């Protein structure tokens, strides 16, 4: 989950300043987001994808301010 590009991210600005202070002047911008790990059971990849997408839209992400993307990987468990 990351804030949409149009939404001001003061946390990111503060992190950029910190990195500059530590000697990384090449940093031009920082966006602070959120990482969520889900473990789920699904018949196949496609159904997992559509379920996770729905979860993002309905709860995990607030579409007014945030964008999301996700990756699936099999745990085999």
């Amino acid at each position, binding site marked *: 989950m990351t804030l949409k590009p*149009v939404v001001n991210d*003061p*946390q990111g600005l503060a992190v950029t300043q910190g990195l500059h202070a530590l000697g990384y002047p090449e940093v031009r911008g920082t966006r602070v987001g959120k990482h969520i790990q889900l473990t789920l059971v699904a018949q196949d990849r496609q159904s997992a994808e559509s379920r996770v997408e729905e979860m993002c839209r309905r709860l995990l992400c607030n579409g*007014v301010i945030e964008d999301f993307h996700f990756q699936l990987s099999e745990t085999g468990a």
Partner: protein
Amino acid sequence: MTWRCGIAVFPGTWSERDCAHWVELAGGDPVMLWHAEPELKGADVVILPGGFAHGDYLRTGAIARFAPLMAAVREHALAGGPVLGICNGFQILCEAQLLPGALLRNSCLQFRCQTTHLRVEVSRGPFLSGLEAGEVLQMPISHGEGRYYAPPEQLRELEAGGQVALRYCGPSGDLGDQHNPNGSLRHIAGVMNAEGNVLGMMPHPERACEPLLGSEDGLQLLRAALAVLAPR
């Protein structure tokens, strides 16, 4: 006529007793509404107080909106019943999509607990029609995530539709970044739905209800609201 004011209580709500005191001072009858119970106990007005419902996990208000009580609040709101969200209550109403927009981390990255001045922008709806547009109120804020945001086109609609209810301002009603404590777009401190019966505000009217607290403007707001409610 004594109006019954339901006060929502979620795990982590911290202003419900202040709200009950405020309601009593305004001549209302407070009743606590537990989040797990899907009923309003005959409340004429519903108040969602401040705090950190469900620990603000995921996002402020994101979990609270699924509480059984919120289904009843939604029904009440959609039927035109007055609903007031204060601070965390405002955040919950936005997450529940009963109000437009979202509330983000303060641009200063600090939790701000201070006195603010608010300019009443519109004199409409059950909560503000007893006040005059342009009137300046004084109330405290106490939040870390109160920066109001709505997409540009929606912001334009809110302004045009008279949904911007309150703005942070100076003591004489002047607007400016120096009076904006959290970086809210267009200095917005409170918004209402299109119909005007649902109001959300970050400042705490219940903490401005006695001379001892430095202001009685919050009491004025609730008294005005209770006075304009149509008698049953």
